[in-house]
């Protein structure tokens, strides 16, 4: 349990041996011999020598174990055994027994290898084992065994060998005659210890004859507890039922043998015993009808307890569930800090943090208990030093308040500032689970700052996320030091800030730093809404530029040079210049503020550290949003309007394209089209037309980019990189362009034509999916059909690709998971084999670099 109970480790595991239990071993470890199928006597007390014998462990509260003397939950249970009247094959060893029978002599029991070659083989095995590991050694054993199966004369005693077959599930046939388990056992007994080495078996821990059961271990009652129904009736576990069958048949077999019954009857009973023992181990053997309950449902026996998705391994061990966790829909809240998570009140009152009472916090914790479980901030449970857990209710509260003293633990509700872990599946990288501070809020969703959507890859179209509350000081400290959002700012994948501005935050800052001018009053309004309290950095002027307002958020001694990709190269604002914390030129766009792009944020992080960086990103983000709130921001229909001249120009481009396409088609029909090397004439035609039509679309795009109104909000989004691109805009206002299926124009449909409204063998643009209208003007019916075709195709494509690529990534991650960079910069696997001689071939830790590079010039400048 916990440390203070002073559990001293007095024994340590040195090694583990895997072997097979022999009859002696089974008898030695057993604490009771089971002789009767009865469970309880008339008084309801377990029968001595029955399957529920008190020596096999306790399942009733209050009783003490007869073997070890401990109580329920302390006693691990003890095995018993039964003596089988006749030996029986263990279903799980059928294959191994067959291997033994086939590879050894039926008379002398020696392995079917000549004496002089045995040492040779042994050496070979050892060599393989040492050089290539156990896996390969096992392979080699199989190889040797396979080569022995065809030998039909013993090299030792020259006895003739017969072909041995298995008739499933548990019958062995030699030359079409059945060999009884007794006979098999005597044969296995004859195999010499020395020969076992060649089977890859250590004779100390496995003897071949142990594969045939003569005694059977009875599992302790603790692993097959009976349940008392409400009616007072007892209902036994499936395993107990099965064991009852075994004991009963075994008993009958004993009696019949002793009474000298005819061989047929004994054989029948023996087969029945074999069946029960087989289904006890595995009730899903293909050739056997499964043993069933009276109700008809198959019994769950040992194999089905372990195997498959609902089995012990995948369900209980690999699939453990956790307490103190929550899951709901997420929604954005830019007013939260980046390292905070908004927790609904209803969740905050269910999840708790255990706090130990000391002399110094007793008054503080008493307040929580006074509030109780129903009033926030209260407490749900109190844990006494002896580990007893008491619920705080209206009835118990007064008493508990008097009872508490230092050493008690109070499980109090979540309060602001508590540590939590926040996670979104699929957890593909370490930033998928980060530590956030709790902020208890009204509402029913978990809230997060939209800037942390990028690391989680979250959006708000119904995504759900998980929240966990660490319960110990160690867990909290680890979460805080290793996983808090601040520690995850720089992506180890590309060495840039993975958290930055997005959406409105980018367009807001873009508009602000581009051309905005505000009065001092407005500027102070804006900044205080963002959370700035110190306005001394604002120049004392009546009218302030957006750049001056933005500069207030930057640290005073910050210097930076970069470029704004949104500005043409000849414009002075193309170069971002920050000197002594003042933005002198340059526009804040996606290339500077976006997540995973630009060195501005990376440099802030490097110079001022993570805590400062979180503050700065938060403020910049909020500034962008406040600007838009103040100014108003709408993507409207008229943003896609074009001037008359522009529309004429576009029309001209399309007409021109039509003309050149018909020219190409004419050339094709005349047979004087210049063929591209490696292509047929028809392919050439298709390629040429596609090329020409794509050019037409690009030309219209350029006209739209140049001639549409540059001052619209839609254009601001496109230019700043916040959302949308020029192609989207061109498709809305001018021309959607050629629809393509699998890299070529649309050629599917009827014979010779795509849709019935076209003439047969029409090669023209509109008959093969060229959409010359824009979305605003509207599509012609046949254009809509083509659009729907490509739309459906791409939907299917994404729907099929996502799980495939996910699985591919999972396999990659599993293959690479235990590679690590050693102190000599080599990358090695768990066995110490070298994978790479210098990490990344350049030895750079990307998370400590700037976009994967070390900027030496900057370092020198800093030192000077």
């Amino acid at each position, binding site marked *: 349990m916990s440390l203070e109970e002073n559990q001293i480790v007095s024994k340590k595991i040195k090694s583990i041996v895997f072997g097979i239990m022999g009859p002696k071993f089974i008898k030695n470890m057993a604490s009771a011999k089971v002789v009767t199928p009865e469970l309880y006597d008339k008084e309801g007390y377990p029968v001595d020598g029955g399957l529920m014998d008190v020596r096999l462990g306790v399942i009733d509260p209050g009783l003490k174990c007869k073997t070890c003397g401990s109580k329920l939950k302390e006693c691990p249970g003890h095995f018993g055994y039964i003596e089988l009247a006749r030996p029986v094959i263990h279903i799980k060893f059928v294959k191994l027994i067959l291997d033994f029978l086939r590879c050894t002599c039926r008379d002398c029991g020696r392995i079917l290898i000549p004496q002089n070659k045995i040492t040779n083989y042994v050496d070979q095995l050892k060599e393989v084992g040492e*050089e290539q590991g156990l896996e390969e050694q096992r392979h080699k054993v199989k190889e040797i065994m396979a080569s022995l199966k065809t030998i039909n004369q013993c090299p030792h005693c020259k006895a003739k060998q017969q072909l041995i077959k298995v008739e499933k599930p548990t019958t062995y046939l030699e030359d079409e005659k059945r060999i009884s388990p007794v006979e098999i056992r005597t044969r296995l007994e004859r195999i010499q210890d020395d020969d076992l080495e060649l089977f890859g078996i250590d004779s100390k821990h496995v003897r071949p004859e142990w594969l045939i059961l003569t005694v059977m271990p009875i599992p302790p009652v603790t692993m097959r507890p009976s349940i008392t129904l409400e009616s007072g009736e007892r209902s036994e576990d499936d395993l107990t039922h099965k064991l009852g069958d075994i004991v009963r048949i075994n008993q009958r077999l004993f009696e019949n043998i002793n009474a000298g019954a005819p061989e047929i009857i004994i054989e029948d009973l023996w087969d029945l015993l074999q069946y029960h023992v087989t289904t006890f181990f595995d009730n899903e053997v293909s050739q056997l009808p499964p043993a069933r309950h009276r109700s008809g449902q198959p019994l769950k026996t040992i194999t089905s307890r372990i195997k498959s998705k609902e089995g012990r391994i995948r369900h209980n061990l690999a699939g453990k569930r956790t307490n103190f966790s929550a899951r709901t829909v997420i929604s954005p809240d830019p007013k939260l800090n980046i390292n905070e998570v908004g927790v609904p009140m209803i969740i905050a009152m269910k999840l708790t943090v255990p706090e130990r009472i000391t002399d110094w916090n007793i008054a503080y914790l008493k307040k929580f208990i006074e509030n109780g479980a129903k009033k926030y901030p209260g407490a749900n449970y109190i844990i006494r030093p002896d580990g007893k857990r008491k619920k705080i209710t209206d009835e118990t509260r007064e008493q508990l308040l008097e009872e508490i003293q230092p050493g008690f633990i109070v499980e109090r509700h979540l309060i602001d500032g508590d540590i939590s872990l926040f996670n979104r599946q699929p957890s593909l990288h370490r930033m998928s689970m980060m530590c956030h501070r709790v902020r208890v809020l009204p509402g029913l969703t978990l809230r997060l700052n939209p800037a942390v959507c990028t690391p989680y890859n979250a959006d708000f179209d119904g995504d759900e996320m998980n929240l966990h509350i660490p319960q110990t000081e160690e867990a909290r400290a680890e979460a805080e030091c290793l996983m808090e959002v601040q520690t995850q700012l720089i992506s180890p994948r590309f060495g840039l800030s993975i958290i930055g501005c997005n959406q409105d935050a980018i367009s807001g800052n873009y508009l602000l730093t581009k051309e905005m001018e505000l009065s001092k009053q407005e500027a102070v309004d804006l900044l205080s809404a963002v959370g700035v309290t110190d306005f001394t950095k604002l120049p004392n002027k009546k009218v302030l530029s957006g750049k001056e307002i933005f500069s207030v958020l930057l640290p005073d001694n910050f210097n930076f040079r970069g470029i704004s990709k949104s500005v043409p190269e000849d414009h002075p604002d193309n170069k971002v210049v920050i000197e002594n914390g003042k933005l002198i030129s340059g526009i804040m766009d996606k290339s500077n503020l976006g997540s995973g792009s630009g060195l501005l944020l990376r440099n802030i992080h490097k110079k001022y550290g993570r805590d400062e960086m979180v503050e700065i990103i938060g403020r910049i983000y909020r500034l962008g949003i406040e600007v838009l709130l103040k100014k108003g921001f709408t993507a409207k229909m008229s943003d896609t309007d074009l001037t008359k001249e522009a529309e004429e120009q576009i029309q001209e481009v399309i007409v021109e394209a039509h003309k050149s396409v018909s020219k190409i088609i004419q050339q094709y029909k005349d047979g004087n089209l210049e063929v591209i090397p490696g292509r047929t004439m028809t392919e050439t035609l298709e390629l040429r037309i596609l090329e020409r039509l794509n050019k037409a679309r690009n030309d219209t795009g350029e006209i739209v980019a140049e001639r549409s109104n540059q001052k619209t909000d839609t254009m601001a989004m496109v230019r700043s990189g916040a959302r949308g691109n020029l192609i989207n805009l061109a498709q809305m206002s001018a021309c959607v362009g050629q629809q393509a299926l699998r890299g070529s124009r649309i050629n599917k449909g009827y014979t010779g034509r795509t849709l019935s409204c076209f003439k047969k063998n029409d090669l023209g643009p509109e008959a093969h999916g060229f959409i010359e209208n824009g979305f605003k003007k509207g599509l012609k019916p046949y254009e809509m059909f083509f659009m729907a075709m490509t739309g459906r195709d791409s939907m299917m494509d994404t729907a099929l690709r996502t799980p495939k690529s996910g699985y591919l990534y999972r396999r990659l991650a599993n293959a690479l998971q235990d590679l690590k960079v050693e102190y*000599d910069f*080599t990358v090695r696997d768990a*066995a*110490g*084999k*070298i*994978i790479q*001689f*210098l990490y*990344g*071939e*350049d*030895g*750079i830790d990307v998370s400590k670099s700037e976009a*994967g590079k070390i900027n030496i010039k900057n370092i020198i400048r800093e030192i000077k």
Partner: protein
Amino acid sequence: MAKKKEQVEHLLIPEHVKLNEKEKKALLEKYNIEVKDLPKILSTDSAISHLDVEEKDVIKIIRKSSTAGTSTFYRGVINE
């Protein structure tokens, strides 16, 4: 079959060189490993057909690298 001792020249095949005993010893000492801990190359690999190699020789490969310009890599020769 007489071995063709001719450097395989192709822009996609990086330079392969066999290490002499001294270099090999230095390499293994530097990384504190044995030949079996190195990545492997088959003695029949056509990229080293121009070299006279045996099992447990070490081949040095000089490659172009997108991160570091050129990088060196080592492989231990194995037989099939």
